[in-house]
């Protein structure tokens, strides 16, 4: 091909867009007629059609072993992290968390009621009310122990965010993350701190923006969770920048040399990496 037959050379953005739109069949009749009156545009259309045809027709062979292996790994992950589908009906905003809380409180209440019944029975036999847990006490004990247990599992990724972001719409749905979604789960005072937006990272640009925002010292941005103290995925606590979500799932952002990395805090799989801004 000689240069004078290369329609791409010196093609403006407008010409490229016109040719691409022609290939996609989204031009109006008038626009199409205009395009067809331009040799450069039509030459580009021909090249673009070649590209499109090549891509569309080139099949990708599926290795059944790889496919079965990938699906098996995904199913294993599903079995190891069963989800409570009922509790995760998306009703919008903080109501997702309210539904979770109500479910847990109901469970605790039911357990407390059972204990109370048993306790009354025992008390009537031994004539002692020392072992009879009041409903409210059992309720609070159950809730406290649940909060403690869940807080332990959830602290590695979201404590810093959740201490300010209890009512986040996109609160990750993993079991670990439920902990910090509990009311006062990370705050002994029981008060609900102001919600912080949880950025959903999808690109390296998102990651850099997140780091810049944290560096700017936005309120509640400093990682104060157990993750900051104990480290996670091999990173020291001091390396932890904060928590976010990646494609809706939990993500922990850390410093790695002169780069910043978003990790899945459960599997430590790297999600994103970018040069530190």
């Amino acid at each position, binding site marked *: 091909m000689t240069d004078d037959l290369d329609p791409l050379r010196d093609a403006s953005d407008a010409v490229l867009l016109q040719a*691409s739109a022609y290939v996609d069949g989204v031009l109006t009749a008038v626009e199409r007629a205009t395009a067809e009156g331009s040799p450069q545009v039509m030459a580009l259309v021909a090249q673009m059609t070649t590209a499109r045809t090549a891509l569309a027709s080139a099949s*990708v062979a599926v290795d059944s072993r790889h496919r079965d292996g990938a699906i098996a790994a995904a*199913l294993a992950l599903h079995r190891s992290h069963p989800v409570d589908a009922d509790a995760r009906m998306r009703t919008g905003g903080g109501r997702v968390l309210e539904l979770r809380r109500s479910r847990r409180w109901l469970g605790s209440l039911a357990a407390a009621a059972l204990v109370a019944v048993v306790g009354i029975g025992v008390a009537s036999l031994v004539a002692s009310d020392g072992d009879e847990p009041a409903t409210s006490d059992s309720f609070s004990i159950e809730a406290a122990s649940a909060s403690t247990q869940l807080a332990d599992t959830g602290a590695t990724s979201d404590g810093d965010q959740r201490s300010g972001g209890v009512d986040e719409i996109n609160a990750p749905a993993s079991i670990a993350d439920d902990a910090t979604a509990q009311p006062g789960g990370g705050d002994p005072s029981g008060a609900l701190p102001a919600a912080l937006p949880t950025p959903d990272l999808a690109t390296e640009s998102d990651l850099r923006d997140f780091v810049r925002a944290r560096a700017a010292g936005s309120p509640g941005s400093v990682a104060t969770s157990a993750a900051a103290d104990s480290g996670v995925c091999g990173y020291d606590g001091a390396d932890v920048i904060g928590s976010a979500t990646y494609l809706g799932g939990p993500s922990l952002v850390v410093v790695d040399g002169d780069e910043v990395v978003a990790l899945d805090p459960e599997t430590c799989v790297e999600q994103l990496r970018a040069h530190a801004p």
Partner: protein
Amino acid sequence: MAADDDASLISAARAGDTVALDRLLRRHYDRVLAVCRRVTGHDADAADAAQEALMAIVRGLDRFDGRSSFGTWVYRIATNASLDELRRRRRRPLLAGGQPDAPGTEPVDATAANRLDAIDARSELDAALAGLAEEFRVAVVLRDVGDLDYAEIAEVLGVPLGTVKSRIARGRALLGAALSGNSDASDQRPRSAP
């Protein structure tokens, strides 16, 4: 008979139905692999990326809210898994050549002549795709392999519609030029930001 559409399978999977999840993943695996293969340019990297994508789908399944189609959501995950794999590859020591897969790694036509032609065509396509900037390659793959429309691609990539159109236009132009034998086409960079 249980409904077999994506929405029904998703609901069942969320409720713990492993069979439903298996069916759902098998239904979408091929398209995931196709995107991964065309973005990464390597069979092995594509397989790894596809597995990562499936696992990400499982992790995020209960957060899928239906605002986009499930297929669009899956493509977004596959795209990001592919880009992650590319980043990991850049940090790995280069193997011999560091080139796209050698010819003959994919099944081809039965006859020898067709086989060679098919190998050449695939190698040429892989090389042409590898010559594109990542942002153009991804946009073109999503459009011409994934058959997503502009709005869906904008959602997948998290960029404006105009940016999608520009990237597709430039990506197609460069890819077409490379396949047509304009040897300096793949060296061209955008004259304006997409």
